[in-house]
């Protein structure tokens, strides 16, 4: 996306509106789900992956340092994405309402 730089002011607009969106959405999540909320936030903050992919894939003027940085960034961001979503799914699967609480028992003890 180097061929079309988005002007700074537009980026600021987007930032301002996203902050509002974030506050509106997250203040409605009940305390019951705050732990999965945080792990899902971890997963989406792995969005750095899109930057990391470009860094690791744009071979061209690559020095060993940029290759290392790009590859390590891809690894860590993927760790966040995969780990975050999976652990959120694992937690959310445990939350059952009274009516369904006793069907598939999913416990270790």
């Amino acid at each position, binding site marked *: 996306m180097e061929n079309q730089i988005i002007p700074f002011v537009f980026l600021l607009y987007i930032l301002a509106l996203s902050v509002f969106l*974030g506050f509106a959405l997250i203040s409605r999540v009940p305390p019951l789900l705050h732990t999965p909320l945080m792990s899902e*936030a971890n997963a989406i903050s792995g969005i750095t992956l899109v930057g990391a992919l470009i860094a690791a894939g*744009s071979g061209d003027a690559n020095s060993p340092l940029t290759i290392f940085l790009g590859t390590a960034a891809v690894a860590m961001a993927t760790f966040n994405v995969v780990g975050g979503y999976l652990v959120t799914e694992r937690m959310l699967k445990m939350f059952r309402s009274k009516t369904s609480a006793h069907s598939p028992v999913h416990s270790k003890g």
Partner: protein
Amino acid sequence: MNHASWINIVYIISCVLFAFGLKFLGSPATARQGNWMSALGMLLAVLATLTAKEIIGFQWIILGGTIGASLGAFVAMRAAMTQMPEMVALLHGFGGLASVFVDWSAYQNHTPDTVVVITALYLSILIGGVTFTGSLVAWAKLSERLPGKPLLFQGQQLVNIAVLAGVLLLAVPFYMTPAYHPVFLWILALSLALGVLLVIPIGGADMPVVISVLNSYSGLVACTTGFVINNVLLIVVGALVGANGIILSYIMCKAMNRSLNNVLFGAFAARKKKTEGTAKGEVKPISPEDAFLILESARSVVITPGYGLAVAQAQHAVRELGELLEKNGADVKYAIHPVAGRMPGHMNVLLAEANVPYDQLVEMDHINPLMDTVDVAIVIGANDTVNPAALHDKTSPIYGMPIIETFKAKTVFVIKRSMAAGFAGIENELFYYDNTRMIFGDAKDIAQKLVAEFKSAV
């Protein structure tokens, strides 16, 4: 329309899916669906990015992706629910470092030329560095690889100020000659040091706040990285995550009646002297057998768990007790204090894992008005979060902290090993109330004894 525009259109779809993911987390009935939508948004964003013209080789992407995905999956499937705070701290740390590396590699490839990019780069390195080492220290404290108590040393504040001043002063040469790499590396090194210095003086009990703050940092660094590499998606997601961390930090601080400032820098202030418990009188112990007789005739029971419940591994025994009480005709609820557990919402996950239905998990503000009508409140592994001194004793260090008002119930059972003071080192006057009965012993043990009583009575 060129290819880059198409990629951005996919990014918009991803943003919408992320937003829906968070919206669906508003209810436990839709939350799982939301998580999958969010994951779909991520998949689309990644696939779209892989088609970008800049990407000419895939070998390093495949290598990094394979390592990250397998480690992520391994840790996510293996982590116990009690370890969730550590896992989340680790994720914050890696997220922060990933952003730093993306910035660094952008910096290597071409020298920033506008004030906006230089500022964004500077902030990214600073916040990202702090997030990485700060999270690692938080992780080490939570997993008890480092002692949980505040680590203090002589002249610590001076060191902190020197490091902070160093980072801030380095901004000047960085603006003047952004191409000079040693300045960049010094900023990074000092930021990494700052992260360690900021978190080591914070005690283990305050980690829920630290985790929330680091969560918002990990969002902020994604945001600033978005400005560095001119990527809208990073800015939107960074803002969402940042808002998440800020809201959760606020909720945690409010639940402890402390300012964020006090939590983060409180270790340096002179500690208020522990007040001697004004609570006087006799504690009234009761045996599990007698407790059973009272529980048997109770119509409504509220179980108030603290982290001690999880430490004693008593979740399953307590859930079984709850079920037997229900079968016996009682209305059973669990009262959850916001800071019960080691991170926001932690106690809910621990009880959900033990198969307690979420309709029975009631938050503090909803249970307190009903407390007058409760026959028996059972306090297990909780202490400060049920101490009535917080409501009326102005000399108490926890004065002003909202509590679960178990003392209003007709009878209160406190299951406790001994009369030792709680986490904050404060006497709990609840133990001396007329309507309180102490059941001394291990939480799991006592719960199992009560379960056995119920079973033998049928």
